[in-house]
Structures are given as structure tokens and as C-alpha cells.
């Protein structure tokens, strides 16, 4: 009997456990398994295998029941998910339905989630930019949050490391605020994006328009072919999953790579209820898992645990991991776990038309989406009445201008005309928000989900700084568009609840001081050294870059550290 127990425990024991299979969990899995560690990856959702489980990937519009539009009944059942641009007939099967996974909104928060193997890495917008010291030094310079415990030199080699494998297209732009990386050829700006770039450079000097850097294989290297991935075919149907592996996802890249080592065990349908802290041993020994189908509770054990459940769910798991030693949640000696949550402010857009460059249009499709304006406000010193700044997307395209008046043969002829209208140009803001103690998540004391896990209560809102920054974005972009001779400029106050940006970050921030932060410079819990957090929960501040690339780099760096620490006996 006791032998059976020992055997069972052995079968449930791994060298490392990774909670979550999204963009950061996938990287943890790849790094651990490549370094020879038997690794268990736990995913709360179903399995999604590359290509095989992309049911809509080759469908034409007319093959969708409502040509892509979600039916009214589905929209009514899913008011939160419906607000996300991804939630259409071609990809809604990758988005969490509201009622299946409820949470409490102390303040409105559109929490968009992807519960399946690969998580949101199947759905992401694939924009990738490095941070610079202008970002890492932000909190210290501008007196908010806490100082980041790392600087650019600490992460730069790891950016290079993950970029080479993931496949990042971009140009070497030589900008201090957006360090260059290991790039595959960039996707070119089109005629009007290029024109706008020139106008901005001439007028302002410090406002740059660059080709958006994206996680697409514009030209494969051997390392990408070795993953079974090929060149991006410019389909821009990425949210359906890409049969070419043209963009980076856990499903196309890190997870199959990890599986090939023979060291990976992937367990879908596995909700992690908590991380197990053994008060006698004084360390974490494993995790408690609920099978989502059978509701059976199982424990798995490992020397080291990586929590990569996506920012807010990582907070939830840690908060729910209570022990004698950690009555307020794992690693939460200072009561700060779940606090200082921040996000990106996407709540303004602007559009216009341009009547120049009419001798050109575009042909094919640009997976990068167009241009990117790195932050130009308060970059080197404080210049405005708000802290920090914003990056912006910028893109231009021409649509055919169809006369849809009348009926009959005349209308039919007009519908077939492909005469092009003027260029349509547009931009959206991506603003840094300031982490505050008053923006937090915690566990609802009463409400539980279908598996008996406490529901997450979210209390996150914009503040005065966000309002001022948004006003500035609209003013500045209007001025810049006017300068470029764009007409019919329309400011769009695209007010939306936090969360819809899908860039929620923080709650278990990194810092030097255990009194004011949860994680140290290695993404390791200050108070419990064999637990690491390398997803969005670790972010001390948000800056303006799309965050996934930084999560990848931090993850690879943290695994490297953890494995070395295990080998030299620091982690046992």
C-alpha cells in the first residue's frame, strides 16, 4: 500500500512544473525541457494542436454562417467577450465565454482570456518591441511604483535569444527609446505611411514612424524551419491559427519544440487550485490541480514552480495559495500581492483621409499592420503636465469607393467597380498607465467558480494622468495629421473599460526590496525561492511597448537562473 503511494507520488513528481501554456509558459516549457528537466505543463483549458486544431483557418467569408458576425444570442450571452475584436465567428472558439468563467467587477474591467493550450499566444496582435533603460528607469526617474531591479543590459542578451527563435521582423532603426533586435527583414511601410514618416522627421525630428516590428517570419532561418514553421504568407487571418506557423505562438513553436526533447508532459483540463507550501520543509513542494472534467483533485510535485497563468490568474493562484507561513497568499508577506495592477490605455483613436500619393495603392497584405510611433513624450526628460507617454500605431490603406445607390443592373455594375478612393489613415494610442495601490485584484470572499476556486475581484480604473495623456494624444496626432495635409480628421474618444487592451500587468511586481515588491530581479518570490513568476504579473511598470516579448525574455532568463541555482544546490 505504502509502496503504491510512493509510486503514485513518483509518477506525479517532475523536476519543474509550469502553470500555463501561453506565451510565457510555452517559453518556460521550452527552456526547462531543453536543459534536460522533466517538466509538467499544466493548462486549464483544452488541448489545441498546431494546424490540426485550427478548424476555421482556411475558410472563406461565405463559409461562416453569418459571414463572421457573432449571432445576437451569443453576443447577449457574452457581453464582455463580444467587446473584443477577436470575438467573431472565425476565432470565438479561442476566447473564454463570460458565463463559463465569471469574475467580480468592483469596477468595470473587460477581462479577455484564452483558456486552451497556447492561451492567448494564438490570438495576440504579434507586435514586439524591446524596452530600453528609458523604460526600466521610468519609475525611479518619475517617482512612481518602485525601481525595476533590472536594467537593459540584464535583459538585452535574452531579448536576442528569444527573438532569434521566435522570428521577429523589423528594421534596425537606431532609436535609443526602442533598441534594435535580431531582425528578419522588416515589412515595408506603404507609400502614405512612408510619406507620413518623412513629414514627421522633417517637422519634429524626434517623432519617428517605423515599420511595426512583429513576430512574423518574413524570411525563415534554419531555426524556424527546424520548428516546422515557414514563411508568413501574408494571410492576416492569424487569430484562426496559422497552418504555416508564420507567426509565433506556443502551439507552433515552443510547445512542439519542448515535446521533441521527450521531457515534456502537457496536461490540459488542469486548473491549478493552489501552489502547495510545506510549512515543515519551508518551501513549495508542488501544486494542487483540479481536473476540469472529472473535478478530481490531484497533487503534482517538483523542485521548482513557474507560475505563468497570465497576469491576473497568476495573482489569483498565488492569493489562493495559503499556508501557516503565508496566510495572505504565497509570498505575500507585505500584503502587496494583487496590488499595483496597471494596463495600457488604448482609449483613443484618430482617423483621416489623404488625397495625395494616389498613383499608389497596396497589393497583398501586411501582417505587421503598418507603422509604429515609438513614445515621443517625456522620453529623455519631463515635458508635459502628465507622467510618461504613449506609443501609437499608424496605418494607411485604400479602399474601393463603391456607389451603392439605386438598384438593378446599374448597382450591380457599380458593385463590381474597384476604383480606389482616397487613402484612409488611422492611428490608435497605447498609453502607459501608472501602477497604484488602489488598482488591485483580490479574492471574492464568497463567490466561487465551477471548480470551487474563489472568483477574482477586479478593481482597476483610469486616473487623471490617463485623461491628460489621452487629451495630449488626440491634440498631437491631430496636429501631426494636419501637418501631413490629411483631411477629414476625426478624433475618436474610444472610451473603453480597462482590460480590453488585453495588456493587464502587475500585482506581483519585481523590485529590490521585499518590503515593497513580491519578486526579486530573477522573477523569484522574495519569500519563497523555488517559485517564479514570469508572466505579466511580474511587471513593475508598463511602459508603452506591447509586453509579450519582454515576458518571453524574462522567462528564458529566469529559467536559466533557476536551472543553475538547482545545479549548484541553491534550489533543492
Amino acid at each position, binding site marked *: 500500500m505504502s509502496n503504491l503511494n510512493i509510486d503514485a507520488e513518483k509518477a506525479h513528481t517532475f523536476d519543474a512544473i509550469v502553470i500555463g501554456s501561453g506565451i510565457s509558459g510555452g517559453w518556460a516549457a521550452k527552456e526547462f525541457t531543453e536543459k534536460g528537466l522533466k517538466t509538467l505543463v499544466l493548462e486549464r483549458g483544452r488541448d489545441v494542436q498546431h494546424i490540426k486544431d485550427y478548424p476555421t483557418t482556411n475558410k*472563406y467569408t461565405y463559409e461562416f454562417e453569418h459571414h463572421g458576425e457573432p449571432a445576437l444570442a451569443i453576443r447577449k450571452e457574452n457581453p464582455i467577450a463580444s467587446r473584443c475584436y477577436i470575438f467573431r465567428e472565425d476565432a470565438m472558439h479561442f476566447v473564454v465565454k463570460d458565463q463559463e468563467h465569471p469574475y467580480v467587477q468592483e469596477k468595470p474591467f473587460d477581462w479577455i482570456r484564452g483558456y486552451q493550450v497556447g492561451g492567448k499566444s494564438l490570438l495576440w496582435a504579434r507586435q514586439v518591441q524591446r524596452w530600453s533603460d528609458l523604460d526600466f528607469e521610468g519609475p525611479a526617474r518619475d517617482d512612481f511604483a518602485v525601481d525595476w531591479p533590472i536594467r537593459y543590459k540584464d535583459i538585452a542578451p535574452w531579448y536576442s535569444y528569444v527573438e532569434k527563435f521566435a522570428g521577429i521582423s523589423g528594421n534596425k532603426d537606431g532609436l535609443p527609446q526602442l533598441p534594435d533586435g535580431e531582425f528578419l527583414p522588416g515589412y*515595408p511601410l506603404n507609400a502614405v*505611411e512612408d510619406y507620413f514618416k518623412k513629414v514627421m522627421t522633417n517637422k519634429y525630428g524626434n517623432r519617428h514612424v517605423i515599420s511595426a516590428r512583429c513576430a512574423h517570419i518574413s524570411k525563415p532561418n534554419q531555426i524556424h524551419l527546424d520548428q516546422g514553421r515557414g514563411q508568413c504568407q501574408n494571410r492576416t487571418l492569424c487569430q484562426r491559427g496559422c497552418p504555416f506557423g508564420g507567426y509565433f505562438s506556443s502551439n507552433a513553436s515552443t510547445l512542439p519544440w519542448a515535446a521533441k526533447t521527450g521531457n515534456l508532459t502537457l496536461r490540459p483540463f488542469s486548473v491549478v487550485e493552489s501552489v502547495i507550501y510545506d510549512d515543515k520543509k519551508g518551501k513549495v513542494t508542488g501544486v494542487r490541480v483540479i481536473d476540469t472534467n472529472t473535478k478530481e483533485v490531484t497533487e503534482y510535485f517538483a523542485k521548482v514552480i513557474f507560475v505563468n497563468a497570465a497576469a491576473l490568474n497568476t495573482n489569483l493562484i498565488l492569493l489562493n495559495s495559503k499556508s501557516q507561513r503565508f496566510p495572505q497568499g504565497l509570498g505575500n508577506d507585505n500584503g502587496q500581492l494583487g496590488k499595483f495592477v496597471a494596463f495600457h490605455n488604448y482609449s483613443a483613436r484618430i482617423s483621416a483621409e489623404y488625397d495625395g500619393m494616389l498613383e499608389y495603392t497596396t497589393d497583398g497584405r501586411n501582417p505587421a499592420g503598418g507603422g509604429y510611433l515609438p513614445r515621443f513624450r517625456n522620453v529623455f526628460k519631463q515635458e508635459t503636465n502628465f507622467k510618461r507617454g504613449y506609443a501609437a500605431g499608424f496605418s494607411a490603406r485604400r479602399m474601393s469607393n463603391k456607389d451603392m445607390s439605386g*438598384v*438593378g*443592373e446599374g448597382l*450591380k455594375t457599380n458593385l463590381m467597380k474597384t476604383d480606389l478612393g482616397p487613402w484612409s489613415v488611422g492611428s490608435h494610442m497605447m498609453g502607459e498607465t501608472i501602477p497604484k495601490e488602489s488598482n488591485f485584484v483580490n479574492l471574492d470572499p464568497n463567490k466561487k467558480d465551477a471548480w470551487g476556486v474563489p472568483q477574482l475581484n477586479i478593481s482597476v480604473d483610469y486616473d487623471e494622468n490617463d485623461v491628460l495623456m489621452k487629451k495630449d494624444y488626440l491634440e498631437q496626432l491631430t496636429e501631426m495629421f494636419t501637418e501631413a495635409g490629411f483631411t477629414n480628421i476625426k478624433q475618436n474618444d474610444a472610451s473603453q473599460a480597462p482590460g480590453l487592451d488585453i495588456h493587464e500587468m502587475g500585482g506581483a511586481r519585481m523590485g529590490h526590496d521585499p518590503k515593497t515588491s513580491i519578486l526579486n530581479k530573477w522573477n523569484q518570490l522574495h519569500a519563497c525561492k523555488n517559485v517564479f513568476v514570469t508572466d505579466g504579473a511580474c511587471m513593475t511598470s508598463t511602459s508603452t511597448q506591447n509586453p509579450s516579448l519582454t515576458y518571453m525574455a524574462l522567462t528564458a532568463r529566469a529559467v536559466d537562473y533557476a536551472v543553475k541555482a538547482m545545479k549548484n544546490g541553491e534550489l533543492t
Partner: protein
Amino acid sequence: MERRLVIKQILIMAGGMALLPSCLRDAGKSSVLLKNLDVSLDQENLLAEIAETIIPKTSTPGAKELNIHLFVLKMVDDCYEPEEQQLFIKGLEALKAITQDQYRKSFMDIAVPERQKVLVGIENDKEASAELAAFYKIMKGKTIQGYLNSQYVMTNLIKWELVPGRYNGYYPVKTA
């Protein structure tokens, strides 16, 4: 005997997912399975003629042949609020009434030029009733959408590429 029954059942089940041949259904009912709308076969046939008037058969198929009216019904049934669905049905009836008023004949019985006049009349009537305006807007908008997104158009006329494999940001515009 039993085999026939099974075949019929299979056909009925298939009809729940796609379009059921009208011969197997209640003769007076629409040939598409609708969840919310109550549409008769007469109304469906009328919608087919309206769609065909909007986008007629020429050297290429028109809306009726491409079953665009069934797409319109599907969209109204699944994607619109109940109030809009009501307006759509009432508007269709209002169209019947004004046609009868103007021509003393039903829409089905008037010639194409008259049919066009009825529709353009609604399009240009700034004082059209709410239901007539709503019906026309939905009917025309969804007919155009259904047509432009139809397999026929997307694969024969304005070809949409599933796999472009290229991007050129300075593509010269062909001048006629």
C-alpha cells in the same frame, strides 16, 4: 419502407444545419429553418424577387440564383434584435401594401421596371415609415453584403486571396 423513413429523417436532420428542400416541409412555410422569424413561403418568394431586383441576373447570376435572400433571412433571424426583426417583417408587408396601392397588383405580378421603381421610391423617400425604411436598409445592405461575400463573387468576379504570399506598399495604380 423503413429505409425511406431513415432517409427522410436524415434529410430532415441535415436540413436543420443547411437549407431544407421545401418539398419536405410544411408547404406554406419558409424553406429555411428560422429560430425567431415567422416567414411564409410567399414572403420568402417575395424576398427572393426583391433581392433579384436589387441585384439582377445579367451575364452573371443574380441574387435569387445565389440564394442571397436566404442569407438575408438567416442574418435577420440570428443577428438582429427582436424589435428590428419585427420592423423587417412589418416593412415587408408595408412594401406589399404600397405596391398594391400604386399598381393594383402584387410585387410578384409587376414587371422589373416597376419593381425597381417601388424600391428606388422607398430608397429616396425621406418620409418613409420606420418599418419600411428599416426593412429596406436591412434588405439592401444584407443583399449587397451577401452578394459581395458570395462564393460566386469571391471566386469569380472580385477574387479574394486566401494566401496572398506578398505585400507591396508601393503598388502602381493602373490608369484606364
